[in-house]
Each structure stands twice: as structure tokens, then as C-alpha cells.
């Protein structure tokens, strides 16, 4: 089995940052803007956020949001 490349690790670290920071802003929306706790909303926002970071922040990667949701591993391999 091939080990995941460095770029794949970087994307996973980015996803981790996305989840943690989105949980924190969700928590703040609940505290300060009377939001409602919704785990699927947090996850959906993480997907969008990480896609925008990864696809704008790397020179070679170019993939649509739907590719990112359906074939995340293929997209991760494209990230430089």
C-alpha cells in the first residue's frame, strides 16, 4: 500500500483546523447571536471553508466543490 504523500497530510491538518475553528465560531453564534446547535451545518461549513482554502492556496490544484465532496482523496493528491 502506498503511504499518503506529504500534501495529503497537509490537507488533513487543514481539515482539522477547519473543524476546530468552525466549532468555535458555531459556539460563539449560539452564545452571542442566539444560534441553534446544528452539527450538520458545522460540517457543511467545514467542507466549504476547507475547499476554499485548499483550492485557492495551492498552485496546481484546481477542482470544483462537487469534486471535493465526492472525491476528496483525488483532490488531495492534486494539492501541491
Amino acid at each position, binding site marked *: 500500500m502506498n503511504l499518503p504523500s506529504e500534501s495529503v*497530510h*497537509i*490537507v488533513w*491538518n*487543514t*481539515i*482539522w*483546523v*477547519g*473543524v*476546530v*475553528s*468552525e*466549532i*468555535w465560531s*458555531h*459556539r460563539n453564534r*449560539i*452564545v452571542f447571536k442566539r444560534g441553534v*446547535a446544528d*452539527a*450538520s451545518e*458545522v*460540517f457543511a461549513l*467545514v*467542507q466549504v*471553508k*476547507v475547499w476554499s*482554502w*485548499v483550492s485557492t*492556496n*495551492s498552485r496546481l490544484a484546481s477542482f470544483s466543490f462537487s469534486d471535493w*465532496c465526492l*472525491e*476528496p*482523496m483525488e483532490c488531495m493528491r492534486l*494539492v501541491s
Partner: protein
Amino acid sequence: MADQLSQLLLGAGVAPGEDDSWIWKDGGLQTFIVSSAYNLVRKDKEADSSPIFRKLWRCKAVPSEALTAWRVLENKLATRVNLSRRGVLIESLRCCLCGKEEESCRHLFFGCSFAWRVWCLLQMAWGSVCVSH
């Protein structure tokens, strides 16, 4: 400090007929460029920091959100437990998301049932994809 500097200069001399001038020793150009100084400082800092922080700063997240993640790792976020530790008076220490336990960093992001649901969604959507590759 001044003594150290004068010590450094003791051995230095200007050859006759040659003009005294400033040079920047790092890099081949011998002229000062900011990026060279930045990398010099950064190299020291990178060697000091633990691998987890190196991973954090190398990721693709925007700096403001990477900073939030850094604050989670360092337990520096203004969670209710941390606020009360800093002497801020708050009504309840209970977690805003599940209402069951005290809102510490460890609880809010990893122990809380709400956070758990988010991590599970991630695992459901992407975890199986990774295993199959």
C-alpha cells in the same frame, strides 16, 4: 553588549586602498534583503517549536483560523472554564453546546457530544474514502 560588539570588531580590518562598507553575510548576494533576515529568524523559531505547531503553521488554513486552532492546542481560548480562571464572573460553567459538562477546551472540541457528532460526520463522509484508498 557593547563590549561584545567591540570584541567582534577587534579582528576586523580594512585593507589599505579598500573602502569600508556594509555587507549582509547570510546568502550569496551580500546585500541585505528582508526575506533573508525573515528566514534566518524563522529557522530558529521553527527548530524550537514542536512538530505539531510546525504542522499547524504549514497547513492551508487562513492565519486567523490557524490562530484559533493554536489557541485550542495551547488552551488559550475564552471558554467558560478559562474565563472563570481569569476571574471573569459568569453565571454558569456549563458547555454552551451540550449543557452537560464544564466548558473547557478539551471538552468543547473533543469530549462534547455535539463536537463528537461533527467528528462523526467527517468520518462518515471522508473516513471510508480514505480507508478504501
